């Protein structure tokens, strides 16, 4: 892809913020508000409070102080040369959101929304969570600010991420396992919306990603854009130039929007989102919404989603609970359709290969979500060659994933990590990531049961 495909008017690119969404939350044909009328007043209030807050110097200072003193921002940029040896000679820089307090980029957004909750005078927050990272971050912010907190989590995910359930409860949050539908993130979101519509007078919904009805995609982007704002300046300072490509994993897409936004006006910088392809897009068992989905309406916005002929949401599949979502943020749909960003699938097997590779070569255990972006870097680096400079958003750390990794690689009681098949450094990727992924996935299928 070349940047000549970009359709964005020049003057928009020079604006401090992208010119989208419009005043009613539309990114081209995507976004908007597809929610019951009962929630419109609350969304309007939230929009007004957010617009007032973002230009209020006192809020901006309070938010900045929290990010500095509580989260530990700015997060560093780390070059990973031993990992990059597997990336066709390209140089790879990691934006270290894994080093944030609570272990991922999710804290950036929840601190902003928790401050907003206090400002609009509500004492209770609710949140949905998949992997548990957004739930943990929300529970953390609620504890910090003295808010009562309820987190909805699919029953299936409470099993996959038991550690994070305990963590949220330690922080004083109530965790409600959701037993409806597919019992995963999408159903947790439905249940959180039902709570919100019932308790909207006292309760604010702290939404975890750049999806949902307006103003969530805008608001979450603005709270997450610090990732890219920092990274762009850090890369310029150390390299004297911009990266050739910026890579991030995409579930709902908040870490990706967070790092992409600052680079959107930089036409020479490729923006690459890596979607979870599960067992492979062609198997139907995946969560690659843009690659394998179609436009529709889910969870309050028009966007790409995985759906059947009747418009029913199709269950997604990914080894990564944080990417296991059949929708995606409307801004990603827009960036895809106008050609400003590209979205590629990464299978479970490829992601786990990259997971082990970064652990072994750099001493950094990434979240499995972030490992999808790392796998994308391996492939793109080999495509671009030795002069390429890649910036990867390491959106979270992998402590929560050790058990999953242990099962995947069959580590048992061995003390040394055997990275498993596919880790041969001489191996070159086959043309289709899906193909090579399947080969590995097949060999590991037994260990997944």
């Amino acid at each position, binding site marked *: 892809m070349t940047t000549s495909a970009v359709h964005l008017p020049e003057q928009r690119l020079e604006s401090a913020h992208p010119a989208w969404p419009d005043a009613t939350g539309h990114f081209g044909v995507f976004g908007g508000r597809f929610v019951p*009328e009962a929630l419109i007043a609350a969304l309007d209030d939230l929009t007004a409070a957010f617009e007032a807050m973002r230009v209020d110097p006192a809020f901006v200072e309070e938010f900045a102080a929290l990010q500095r003193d509580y989260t530990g921002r700015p997060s560093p940029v780390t070059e990973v040369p031993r990992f990059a040896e597997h990336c066709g000679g390209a140089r790879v820089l990691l934006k270290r959101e894994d080093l944030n307090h609570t272990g991922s980029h999710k804290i950036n957004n929840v601190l902003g929304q928790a401050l907003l909750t206090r400002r609009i005078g509500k004492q209770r927050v609710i949140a949905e969570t998949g992997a548990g990272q957004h739930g943990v971050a929300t529970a953390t912010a609620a504890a910090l600010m003295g808010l009562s907190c309820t987190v909805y989590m699919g029953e299936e995910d409470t099993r996959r991420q038991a550690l994070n359930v305990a963590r949220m409860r330690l922080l004083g949050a109530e965790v409600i396992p959701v037993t409806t539908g597919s019992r995963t993130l999408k159903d947790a979101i439905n249940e959180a919306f039902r709570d919100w519509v019932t308790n909207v007078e006292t309760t604010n919904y702290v939404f975890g990603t750049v999806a949902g009805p307006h103003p969530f995609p805008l608001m979450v982007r603005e709270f997450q854009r610090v990732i890219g704002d920092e990274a762009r300046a850090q890369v310029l300072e150390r390299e004297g130039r911009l990266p050739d490509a910026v890579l991030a994993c995409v579930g709902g897409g908040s870490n990706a929007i967070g790092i992409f936004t600052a680079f959107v006006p930089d036409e020479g910088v490729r923006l690459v989102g890596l979607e979870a392809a599960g067992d492979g897009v062609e198997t139907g068992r995946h969560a690659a919404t843009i690659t394998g989905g179609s436009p529709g309406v889910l969870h309050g916005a028009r966007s790409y989603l995985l759906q059947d002929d*009747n418009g029913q949401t199709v269950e997604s599949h990914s080894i990564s609970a944080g990417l296991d979502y059949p929708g995606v943020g409307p801004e990603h749909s827009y960036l895809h359709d106008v050609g400003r960003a590209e979205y590629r699938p990464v299978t479970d097997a490829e992601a786990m290969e990259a997971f082990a590779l970064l652990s072994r070569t750099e001493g950094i255990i990434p979240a499995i979500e972030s490992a999808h972006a790392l796998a994308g870097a391996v492939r793109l680096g080999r495509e671009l060659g030795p002069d390429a400079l890649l910036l990867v958003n390491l959106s979270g750390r992998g402590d929560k994933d050790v058990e999953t990794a242990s099962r995947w690689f069959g580590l048992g009681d061995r003390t040394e990590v055997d990275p498993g098949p596919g880790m041969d450094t001489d191996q070159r990727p086959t043309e289709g990531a899906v193909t090579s992924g399947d080969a590995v996935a097949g060999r590991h299928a037994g260990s997944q049961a």
Partner: protein
Amino acid sequence: MSALEDRIGAARAEGRAALVAYLPVGHPTVEDSIAAMTAAVEGGADVVEIGVPYSDPGMDGPVIQQAVDVAVRAGVGMRDVLRAVEAVAAAGAVPVVMSYWNPIERYGVDRFATDLAAAGGAGAITPDLIPDEAGPWLAASDAAGLDRVFLVAPSSTDARLRATTEACRGFVYAASTMGVTGTRATVGDAAERLVARTRAVTDKPVCVGLGVSDGDQAAEVATFADGVIVGSAYVRELLEGRGPEGVRALSAQLAEGVRRRSTVSR
């Protein structure tokens, strides 16, 4: 003209509120759901809200979720819905489709409007579509001569009440309480206040839904609304195995309720 407004007007001429029964297509099966809808009409429902199964019914409580989940898993689609529309029309009630937006968008908005009109449907109620986002549906329903019902809520501002009722044709759906569908012990004052606020900005019929489950509640709502919408209580009859007989009996009880008052409040 509006088939819904005509039917509600006819009820009003009898000095009563209209009874609107909701049942989803495909629970427990397509055939059984159609039999239940027919029974609801036989028991006295004036209008049947024919529910389109949807995988993510964000406005529905546990009772309707449970029923709709069965239909979604069975792959029930718009073709089955249109069959139910024909059956309800044949039974003598006014059929109106109740659907979250994505199944309609997926089917094709224009195609949906054309096929619904051809099946004898009066129009559609769209709980997660606000008029602000409804451009294609406004155009398609105009072209096909269909009613379109949007919701108002206790939290709606006066400006939104005006805009939303302006876009409605057939009736205005007043969601009586802040919350999801389900039976409640009391309907509450919020419903009456909302209806009064709605009537201040429109002359269109106002029907009240969310929470009504028995004849007494129907009678109470009928004192201030043009129509009483009952959903979860009907679905519960099927979930608890009482079948079309239970549905018919519930309809009869509710039909008695909406007739209990002697004067129309407006």
